[in-house]
């Protein structure tokens, strides 16, 4: 069957068998290998992509079901080639990854969370990544990475006059 998909803002088409998952289609037809094949039955979250901005498991969806949605993979997050998104950079800064297998899924889950709110509680972060398994980090530094990214995004979106640092300076005077 022919499918027309919109991936990272670009219209793509492919000839696929109905039984081919969106995950395999992304990896094999479009060489978007950032979505990782882990358990391939919806348990591990390594294959997470965003569908209309919300995280879903690309192994639990067939490519023939995925037309008409805005699909975002980890390759679609960096602002320009060679640069990292704020969340990607935060994962590097805080050592939020070791082997890296779960990382694209973690970052996309965090991305969806921080699109909704840049002031998530620790519980919000834990819930957002609860469907993604990491066997290296013990999750602590992943949570720190998301908190760190949220801090940076908050500051980046605050006009200078209202920034917390400036405020405390003003109060000190």
């Amino acid at each position: 069957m022919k499918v027309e998909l919109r991936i990272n803002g670009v219209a793509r088409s492919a000839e696929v068998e109905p039984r081919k998952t969106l995950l395999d289609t992304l990896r094999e037809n479009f060489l978007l290998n950032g979505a990782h094949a882990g358990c391939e039955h919806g348990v591990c979250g390594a294959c997470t992509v965003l569908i209309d901005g919300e995280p879903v498991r690309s192994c639990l969806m067939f490519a023939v079901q995925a037309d008409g949605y805005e699909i975002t993979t980890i390759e679609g997050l960096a602002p320009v080639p060679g640069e990292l998104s704020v969340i990607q950079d935060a994962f590097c800064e805080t050592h939020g990854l070791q082997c890296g297998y779960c990382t694209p899924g973690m970052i996309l889950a965090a991305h969806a969370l921080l699109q909704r709110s840049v002031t998530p509680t620790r519980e919000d972060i834990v819930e957002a990544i609860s469907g993604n398994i990491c066997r290296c980090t013990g999750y602590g530094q992943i949570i720190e990475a998301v908190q760190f990214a949220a801090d940076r995004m908050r500051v980046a979106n605050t006009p200078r006059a209202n920034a917390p640092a400036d405020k405390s300076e003003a109060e000190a005077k």
Partner: protein
Amino acid sequence: MKPAPFDYVRPGSLAEACELLAGDEDARLIAGGQTLVPMLAMRLARPARLIDILRLPELAGIRAEKGAVVVGATTRQAVAERDPTIAAHVPMLARVLPWVGHPPTRNRGTIGGSIANADPSAEIPLVTVTLGADIMLATPDGPKSIAADDFFMGPMTTSIGQGECIGAIRFPVWPHKRIGVGFFEISARRSDFAFVAATAQVALDEEGRCLAVALGLGGVGDRPLRLDVSSLVGTELDAADMKDAVHAASSGIDAMSDLHASAAYRRRVAVTLCIRALEQARAEAAANPAEAAR
């Protein structure tokens, strides 16, 4: 972990979907696919054809009716979780949804899909049985409705017939003013399958006496169970009343036993969680001020 080959069709109407389904014994419906696709991947299911009903307009939407909220079968669990009508009128459903799978599975998984799957430990079927919801079916002979209690037959088994499709679920809305819900669940990990889940809804009058009560238990029997605690109506729901009622209502339950939890464990936890759910529901109802309720 690759499914066996199948044909894929996306009918344009519900009538067409039922017709396709009725005429093909090897066809299965797919909507969110969050349970079916893993079964396909493990080849526990090998349908010759998948009929995709996810985008059928007849199965979408959440609407308030007189005395009920009707939830379209393909309503995503994540959408229902954030829906103001459900939060206001079917608070029990809103309460359990965060316990259904994980955010990514709730973004695809549907309300009707969880009911059709009929896992005895699933939270959404538990709510339908506890509240006495109606499962509204589209059939080749037109619409029909089955009480949730008669719909679930056993593990992964329902009374749905060949060519029939869940169209919507009709959740009754209680007319009372002071309503509270309670929910507790024990599982190996948060959001994993419940060994035991208990949910309760309580309505109180202005003096704090119980006007109506519903109590349900999931994960214990081979399907969700509604427990008869009607002896609590008219009481002030004190600890001794609740304990006696729960013990009486749960004494005859045939509990499942498996690798994760023995029948004895499930029965013991069930009693405790039922009492906690009732206590939580009573406290929540009592927190609604009597005079502000109109």
